[in-house]
């Protein structure tokens, strides 16, 4: 089911948690809410579930206005970071719970419930565990039970709050891929919250990046990584270099090198961001000049620290492993892709690969 969020606000006491969030989620989409702690992502998710009441704004599931709809009426599947399993019930009873608590008129028969539980145990690969108690399961197994329990009620939307936050790195990786598969198979509209950028980028159809109670960008993982809309996203996701530059006469320059033309009338200090892999050593005319300060091995790559002429602070970029370079060498740096922000707003983007500037 599609979700439409308009002007959503939430205030706790005097401190605003969300101000004016707009977001449209397509039916069957898997969307990740990514942000640092305190960005409001969990608050947004809990408001969708009805666990928090918004201060203002509205939410529609399809055509259905969620205002005034109780938690129970919303039919959302919610998966908590702490699993929140009923530890005095077996795995099977946990999964069946949402069906058993229905009023008699809409409750499936005992046999229908049993076969639904069986089916879900198969889906989350826990067949044979129906008689166990949550205390007898590993963290990853518990989270799978929690997911099966949420899916049992045929939710309109599936909401996951840091679903893998309490798990080991390896288990997390497996579960991510597995959750994506389950999503593709069941087709539920799914919203999940995470502070882990790898998780968000790997699993989501689209990522919504939140910062201080507002959405900074909603885009595909590729666009979020390659084409961040704000300085915050450059800093928050992946590695990025930040260079303070000046805009003069409609041009952005580092030292004497003109990087891009910006619209006339934009003058003064600005920030230039680019990722280490989007720059290369090149002595051509479009390159900025600088001095190699240090070299470091960085996984499969070699990373160089370079001090650009006419810019404060060092930048990092990826260098060919075999390049005969040593600290102190003079070199040119060609930026293939970067973005320039003035007062937090993007004034120019350059992508040499696609020749768009």
């Amino acid at each position, binding site marked *: 089911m599609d979700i439409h969020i308009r002007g959503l606000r939430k205030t706790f006491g005097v401190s605003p948690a969300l101000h004016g969030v707009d977001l449209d989620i397509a039916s069957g989409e898997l969307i990740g809410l990514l942000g640092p702690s305190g960005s409001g992502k969990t608050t947004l998710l809990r408001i969708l579930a009805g666990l928090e009441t918004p201060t203002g704004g509205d939410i529609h599931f399809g055509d259905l206005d969620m205002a005034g709809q109780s*938690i129970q009426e919303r039919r959302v599947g919610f998966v908590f970071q702490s699993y*929140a399993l009923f530890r*005095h019930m077996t795995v099977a009873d946990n999964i069946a*719970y949402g069906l058993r608590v229905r009023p008699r008129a809409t409750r499936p028969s005992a046999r229908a419930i049993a076969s639904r539980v069986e089916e879900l145990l198969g889906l989350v690969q826990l067949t044979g565990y129906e008689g166990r108690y949550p205390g007898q399961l590993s963290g990853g197994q518990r989270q799978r039970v929690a997911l099966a329990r949420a899916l049992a009620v045929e939710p309109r939307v599936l909401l996951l709050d840091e679903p893998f936050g309490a798990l080991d790195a390896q288990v997390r990786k497996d579960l991510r891929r597995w959750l994506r598969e389950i999503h593709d198979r069941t087709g539920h509209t799914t919203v999940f919250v995470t502070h882990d950028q790898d998780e968000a980028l790997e699993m989501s159809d689209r990522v919504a990046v939140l910062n201080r109670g507002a959405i900074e960008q909603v885009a595909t993982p590729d666009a979020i990584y390659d084409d961040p809309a704000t300085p915050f996203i450059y800093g928050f996701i992946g590695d990025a270099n930040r260079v303070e530059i000046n805009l003069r006469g409609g041009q952005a320059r580092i030292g004497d090198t003109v990087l891009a033309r910006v619209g006339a009338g934009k003058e003064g200090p600005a920030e230039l961001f680019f990722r280490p892999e989007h720059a290369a050593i090149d002595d051509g005319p479009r390159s900025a000049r600088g001095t190699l300060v240090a070299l470091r091995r960085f996984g499969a790559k070699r990373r160089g620290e370079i001090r650009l002429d006419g810019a404060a602070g060092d930048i990092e970029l990826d260098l060919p492993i075999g390049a005969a370079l040593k600290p102190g060498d003079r070199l040119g740096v060609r930026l293939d892709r970067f973005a320039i922000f003035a007062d937090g707003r993007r004034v120019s983007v350059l992508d040499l690969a696609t020749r768009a500037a």
Partner: protein
Amino acid sequence: MSLSDSLVKPSPLPGFGPALGAALLWLGLLVLVPLAALVWRASGLGLGGIIAIATQPRIAAALRLSFGLAFLAAVLNVVLGGIVAWVLTRYEFPGRRLLDAAVDLPFALPTAVAGIALTAIYAPNGWIGAPLAALGVKIAFTPIGIFIALVFIGLPFMVRSVEPVLAEFDPEIEEASATLGASRLKTVLQVVLPPLAPAFITGFALALARGVGEYGSVVFISGNIPFFSEIAPLLIVVKLEEFDEAGATAVATIMLTISFAMLLLINLVQGWTRKRMGHV
């Protein structure tokens, strides 16, 4: 393989020997020796003699009254104590700290003071007793009065057993139940209360045990009418005052045996519940 190797599971914690020794020493000096002396004294009567005393009508009536009322009072305290613990842990309201402290008063108050206060209130000329007397309900000097005194002194046991467990209860579990469509009532009955069962059983056992042996707060309000409102602990005192030491020890031994059997049973139920509720 030595004996200690075969009987004791190895533990990484050092000091098992001294710790167990100290525990057994205290338990022995403070609990087992006096109780053994009691049983030894009573054994002079022989099993037949004890049973004969236990079945004397006045003593049997007192035992029934003591155990019956202690049981009923503990049952009521499950409800009352549960509600008080719920209010104290779930809501923030002015005076919560004060209420929290007041719960412990029955622990701290000399029981005789509590007994006299309760009697003054529930006597036919007391604040609550007078209007009730007008309706024809008599509380003081009847088993109902005893019941009220036992509820009073048992309440803190219940509250203090349940409160910490309830305070630790993860609110997300209730939220999970709500998102799955369960009404508030179903959530409380099926999700919140079952895991609290071990704590309730503990509180019940403590309140029951305290109620059975309670003397000070009861003797004033009960009126101590044989066959009607005379409790077993009082009967022990009466026997002693009559220099019937054998009779007193016999009643005491009977109470001890029943109490021990009850507590053992409750502990067994407790162990079973804990396992069922997932405290492995």
